[in-house]
């Protein structure tokens, strides 16, 4: 059982106030009804349940939260957000936490999922659009898992679902500029 008598005061808790500010969500209002966790389709694969996550945030447990598997396992289905009686958008908080975790440089609780996101963004940066084959090749080079889904890939290729070459268009340059500015920090 979690301690239900905690005094939640964002002013005395810098991590809590940071997450409240970045997400715009009133995390201090959570009263542990557990509806979020009851309806979460991926809760079984999490190391911290969504309701527990909110409690850890109220306590200000920065490292525990940012190094959790949970923030990466969340599939952003928003079932929790629509069922919260206190109107807390839990899925949005998960986004905020993923953003913070990446910026903190801490070792993520799940390896392949953040790698996937980073390869996905690299593909957008270099090509402007997602070309699935390039994405998969890059991902396999990073995860070294070369044979996973190879048979499925071939099946999809035979059905014309995987294109060999990316499509041609001109928008890519603007996209590179956006990324460059974000990487330099001039757009934040």
């Amino acid at each position: 059982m979690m301690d239900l008598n905690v005094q939640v005061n964002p002013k005395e808790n810098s991590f809590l106030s940071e997450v409240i500010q970045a997400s715009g969500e009133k995390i201090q209002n959570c009263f542990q009804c557990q509806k979020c966790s009851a309806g979460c389709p991926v809760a079984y694969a999490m190391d911290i349940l969504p309701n527990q996550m909110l409690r850890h945030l109220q306590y200000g447990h920065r490292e525990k939260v940012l190094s959790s598997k949970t923030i990466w396992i969340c599939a952003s289905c928003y079932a929790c957000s629509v069922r919260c009686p206190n109107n807390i958008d839990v899925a949005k908080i998960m986004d905020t936490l993923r953003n913070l975790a990446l910026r903190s440089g801490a070792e993520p609780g799940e390896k392949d999922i953040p790698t996937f996101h980073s390869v996905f963004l690299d593909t957008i940066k270099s090509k402007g659009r997602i070309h699935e084959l390039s994405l998969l090749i890059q991902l396999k080079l990073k995860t070294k898992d070369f044979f996973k889904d190879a048979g499925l890939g071939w099946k999809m290729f035979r059905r014309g679902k995987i294109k060999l070459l990316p499509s041609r268009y001109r928008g890519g340059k603007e996209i590179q500029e956006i990324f460059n500015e974000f990487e330099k920090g001039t757009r934040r």
Partner: protein
Amino acid sequence: MKEISYYPGCSLHGTAREYDDSIRGVLKILDIRLQELEDWTCCGASSAHCTDEELAIELAARNLAIAEKSDHELLVPCVACYSRFKAVEKEVREHSKKVYFPYQGNVPIRYALDFFCDEAILEQVKKKRVKPLSGLKVVCYYGCLTVRPPKVTGIREYENPQHMDRLMKLLGAESIPWSYKTDCCGASLMITRTDIVRKLSDRLLSTAKEAEADCLVTGCPMCQANLDTRQEELEKETGKKYDLPILYFTELMGLALGHPDARKWFRRHVTDPIKILSAKGLM
């Protein structure tokens, strides 16, 4: 002739080609002209908002700024793109978010399913229907982002949506009540945590079979890919038999409207829909 702008998104140029082809086919029959956005780029999809919310906003806003150059509605068939666009629209309209590209929040952003369920379109479909889908039993799978969160989608019946069911009935199919219509398939975990996607897919496929559906209908490229492509490996794991075709709602619209290319769309599926559609006398 009505004209609309079109943002296909990356999937519709790749793994969801039959969705793109069937949308174009159906709109042609309905006399609606499609203008693909010039030079569109990826909306950032599931990865940008997980990484950097500010970057995610700019990647989506670039496309909305292109769309805003015309006064047409913007048709968005991929629900991941749609959800991102609506989130940015909300930021700009309600929180006066300033974005780098000239986007003011004035483009009507229409998810394809919502667009095709407009009264005026349904009226046209009713008139032009040449082959009612009689005897075809379907479950309507809305998934997550077509309905959630309602503050973004504006959908009122987000726990038990009915609009796709109504569309299917109008096409002549039988839409079966099914409790899993807004459950998650695991979405972008498809490549990294395939185990989770398999578990969630098994539940959706098994319950659709229990409901005695001939096929499952969706409007999301990620749901379609997750449920269509992994049935064989799931069968080996669970010992069950699924063989449940996963169709885009626009493919069934095209079939009922008598589009000559329907067979070509169906051939792109990993789980073959032609067998059951032929057995029902629909092909």
